[in-house]
């Protein structure tokens, strides 16, 4: 099948899909309309649970079980990548020589922003129940911050600051923490992931019951997951030499 034939077939199929979508669209409530029954129910529930951030309330209280699945998906993908991205028998790991040139300004910017970014990530996780953000977002920000070292040309330092064995443990601990809250809810309040903690005052830092705890568990798991993922890819790109003769030729040319 030539690319042209393939494209024609695809366009025929897509034309059918477009016709169906065009028929379905007018059945939807119009954009920007004022009737949102789910919105009304979710906002009421969030108010009663003293969770200022309704999105966090939906994710970590009203449908927390689904969020447990979501966290598990991420961790499963880390395991999958770790299984796929590993050294083949004929490959060897080498100490990477310093190559490439990093601008002094980039180096400084990375050094200045690293603590700020990690701190911002922690802040976004901590205030997940009362301001925009939460465990997923804050975890991603914190993991990004650590990788500023790589952008600043300090891969060796990144390797030292990034004990992968520890992050494998914290990733599992994040998942276990979520499970612990779930099971405690079952024991105390009779249903899995019940919000069994005192809910406090709306918009206070210690409010919303179990939501901050679950946010923290997810934040730890997500940050660890992203660090492990990127570590796998960086290791492939920077520290493993292929078995192909051309890469060895490159090395000889470079040395």
């Amino acid at each position, binding site marked *: 099948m030539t690319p042209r034939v393939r494209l024609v077939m*695809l366009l025929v199929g897509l034309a059918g899909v477009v016709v169906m979508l065009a028929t379905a669209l007018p059945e*939807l409530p119009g954009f920007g309309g004022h009737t949102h029954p789910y919105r009304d129910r979710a906002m009421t529930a969030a108010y009663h649970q003293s969770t200022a951030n309704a999105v966090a309330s939906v994710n970590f209280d009203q449908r927390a079980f689904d969020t447990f699945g979501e966290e598990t998906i*991420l961790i499963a993908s880390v395991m999958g990548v770790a299984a796929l991205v590993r050294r083949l028998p004929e490959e060897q790991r080498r100490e990477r020589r310093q190559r490439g040139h990093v601008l002094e300004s980039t180096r400084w910017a990375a050094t200045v922003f690293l603590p700020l970014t990690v701190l911002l990530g922690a802040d976004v996780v901590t205030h997940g129940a009362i301001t925009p953000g939460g465990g997923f977002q804050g975890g991603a920000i914190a993991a990004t911050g650590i990788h500023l070292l790589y952008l600043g040309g300090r891969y060796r330092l990144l390797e030292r600051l990034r004990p992968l064995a520890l992050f494998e443990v914290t990733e599992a601990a994040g998942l276990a923490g979520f499970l612990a809250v779930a099971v405690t809810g079952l024991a105390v309040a009779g249903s899995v992931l019940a919000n069994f903690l005192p809910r406090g005052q709306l918009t206070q830092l210690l409010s919303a019951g179990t939501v901050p705890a679950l946010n923290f568990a997810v934040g730890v798991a997500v940050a660890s997951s992203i660090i492990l993922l990127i570590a796998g890819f960086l290791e492939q790109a920077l520290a493993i030499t292929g078995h192909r003769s051309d890469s060895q030729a490159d090395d000889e040319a470079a040395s």
Partner: protein
Amino acid sequence: MSYYPYAVGLAIVLLGIIGIARSRDLVHAVVCLSISQSGTYVLLLAVGFDRGGVAPIFGSTVSRSTRVVDPVVQALTLTDIVVSAAVTSMLLAVVLQIAKRRDTVDPDQLRSLEG
């Protein structure tokens, strides 16, 4: 009442699919899949939009009677993004393996089965 934003979201999904079909490079195909998923974010958020609504976070300016946008679809979008990250990373790992074993990332070169 306008349906234009929904159409934009769906168009992004379809353009991503066209990109996957026309792709000459597996990394490019993975990126196209991410673009398709981005279309679903646009669609979800468009469904939850309420003209004149603000962010669904209680505070000094938002009380129970304030008009807000739908937090449910925003939570679903968050899930969507996490799934997208997981899928993308897995696929890129597979592409890495293919590149190592077959020395190519052009899907048209990957016809023959390896015994």
